[in-house]
């Protein structure tokens, strides 16, 4: 098991370097010299080249990348052109919000997808109902679902706040009330994906002989489903959860914008609109790294569930 983890980790590290280098190279070469942006439109060419020299923007791209990476590893991503704040402080305040939102959504949708599909008997009506809900929740864009929920629960029924973020310091209740609609919006999409993946796998595991053997022991249908089918069918869902969690490092972009949540996603959109190069680069790199790492974690969890991998060392 330890060897397995090491092997995977050694494989992931160079991938992170390659991906972040590509990102760095593309952004630096396409967005033009940062000096021009920092100095503004009326900067003289002389001033720009002076600054280029001073900051090393003329150096080969790989040298610039290594410099950036070295600083980034120490938590220094530079300053935002737009807000003049350090990028790390911006990310420091935005990332926890995105992660909290994402974890709620992944956990709720994961539990709902696995639970509903394992426990509800495969009758004609309940089965097609779950597939219909799954299909709709995959195809409805987050902005549409978010807008609908805001209209129904915040504007029409006035049960819940429309938007914005209430930090924990506002009290737990307020915090959670503000989270309900965004979490529901984000969960819907993941519920659909998880449910489709899990159902397909469940169906194939259901026909395995060991399931019949479990029933032949006299176990109840629920127990057979939870003890024997579930652990064998949940693996692809875990893989997908890993990918999803990694993607959420970039924030639930659309959902955060719909509900005006100051997470990574909204920060990222603002940076893109304002060509805020250090912020785009930092968030891009965090997404890529987060994704590779969460994928790795998912692989390890799957290996750990499977005794054949766990016991070989």
């Amino acid at each position, binding site marked *: 098991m330890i060897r397995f983890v090491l092997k995977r980790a050694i494989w992931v590290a160079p991938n992170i370097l390659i991906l972040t280098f590509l990102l760095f190279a593309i952004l630096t070469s396409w967005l033009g010299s940062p000096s021009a942006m920092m100095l503004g439109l009326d900067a003289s060419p002389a001033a720009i080249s002076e600054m280029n020299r001073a900051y090393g923007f003329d150096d080969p791209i790989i040298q610039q990348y290594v410099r950036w990476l070295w600083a980034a590893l120490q938590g220094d991503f530079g300053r935002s052109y737009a807000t003049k704040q350090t990028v790390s402080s911006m990310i420091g305040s935005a990332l926890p919000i995105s992660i909290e939102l994402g974890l709620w959504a992944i956990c709720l949708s994961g539990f709902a997808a696995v639970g509903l599909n394992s426990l509800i008997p*495969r009758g004609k009506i309940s089965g097609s109902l779950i597939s219909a809900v799954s299909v709709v929740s995959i195809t409805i864009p987050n902005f549409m679902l978010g807008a609908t929920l805001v209209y129904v629960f915040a504007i029409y029924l006035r049960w819940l706040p429309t938007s914005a973020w209430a930090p924990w310091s506002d009290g737990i209740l307020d915090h959670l009330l503000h989270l309900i609609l965004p979490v529901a919006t984000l969960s819907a999409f993941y519920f659909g994906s998880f449910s489709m993946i899990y159902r397909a796998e469940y169906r194939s595991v259901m*026909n*395995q*002989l*060991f399931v*019949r*053997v*479990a*029933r*032949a*022991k*006299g*176990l*109840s*249908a629920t127990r057979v489903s939870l*003890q*024997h089918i579930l*652990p*064998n069918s949940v693996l692809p869902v875990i893989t997908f959860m890993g990918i999803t969690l990694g993607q959420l490092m970039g924030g639930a972009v659309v959902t955060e914008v719909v509900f005006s949540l100051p997470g990574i996603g909204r920060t990222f959109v603002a940076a893109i609109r304002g060509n805020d190069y250090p912020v785009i680069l930092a968030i891009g790199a965090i997404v890529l790294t987060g994704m590779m790492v969460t994928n790795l974690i998912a692989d390890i969890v799957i290996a750990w*569930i*499977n*005794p*054949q991998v766990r*016991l070989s060392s």
Partner: protein
Amino acid sequence: MTALLTIQGLRTEFGGGDRSIVAVDGVDLSVERGATLGVVGESGCGKSALSLSIMGLLPEAGRVTAGRIIFDGRDIAHASPAIMRTIRGKRIAMVFQEPMTSLNPLFTIGFQIAEALREHEGRLTDRAARARIIDVLHRVRIPSPERRIDEYPHQMSGGMRQRVMIAMALSCSPDLLIADEPTTALDVTVQAQILDLLGELQAQTGMAMILITHDLGVVAEMADRIAVMYAGRIVEFATAAEIFDNAQHPYTLGLLGSIPRIENDRERLLAIEGAVPSPLRLPSGCRFHPRCVFAAPECSRADIRLTAVDVDHVSACLRAPVEGIRP
């Protein structure tokens, strides 16, 4: 004393409407306590559907549409899931054909045997359960069971896994063990060991057994009575001795012919030509007549029923006894 299991007019269908397939078509059988019944036939003849009907484990598309399955005085053909759960694993246990896929790859074999024990024997301390499992692993001759109990299926050979399956089936001391092709997937040397084991265990525990196989050789030494099935029906049912010495159905003769025997290897083997008919297009009359070397014109028309040819011997052949008309 009444039989432990009596099956009357059992009919099991898959699918529905016009396209339904009748896998078991009017089968009558009985098994006495402590006795062994062999059920023999080619694959696709309805043997497995028969055993799954008894266990109440038919897949979703399948159901029992007629007949009774009387186990220990009670009809369980349509018993509720709750009642079947108290019977399955406890009073009727089953061993399947594929030991390689019979065990859940994610759990230790000890855990998987314990599941059956805990389901039927109420509260059991971990220590007591462990002791019982080690004991039952001993009885199926698994070496060093104290260590093996914590192993996972992938760490065991096919023969070992089949022993685990037998241990699991025996753990709650069932009255009836259904073994569905228990040795087919195993190496020849292991096959004999497993059969010997089953025979010994039966002698020790006095349980009844239904041994399902496509190979008459497998049941030769173990079965008291043998039922030969073809295309969903029983075509011949007799004591084992009668089947081997005095078979009256051409299909049984064909199956016997496919067992190579040293003493009469000069005799021409009666191999069966052709294939089992598709359940969607069954021949009229005797279902075996298109493949039968004795077939006469009336075989395709008559409705042929099991008729007594001797004491304790019934056969569904119009032309029985076939003594004089060997082709």
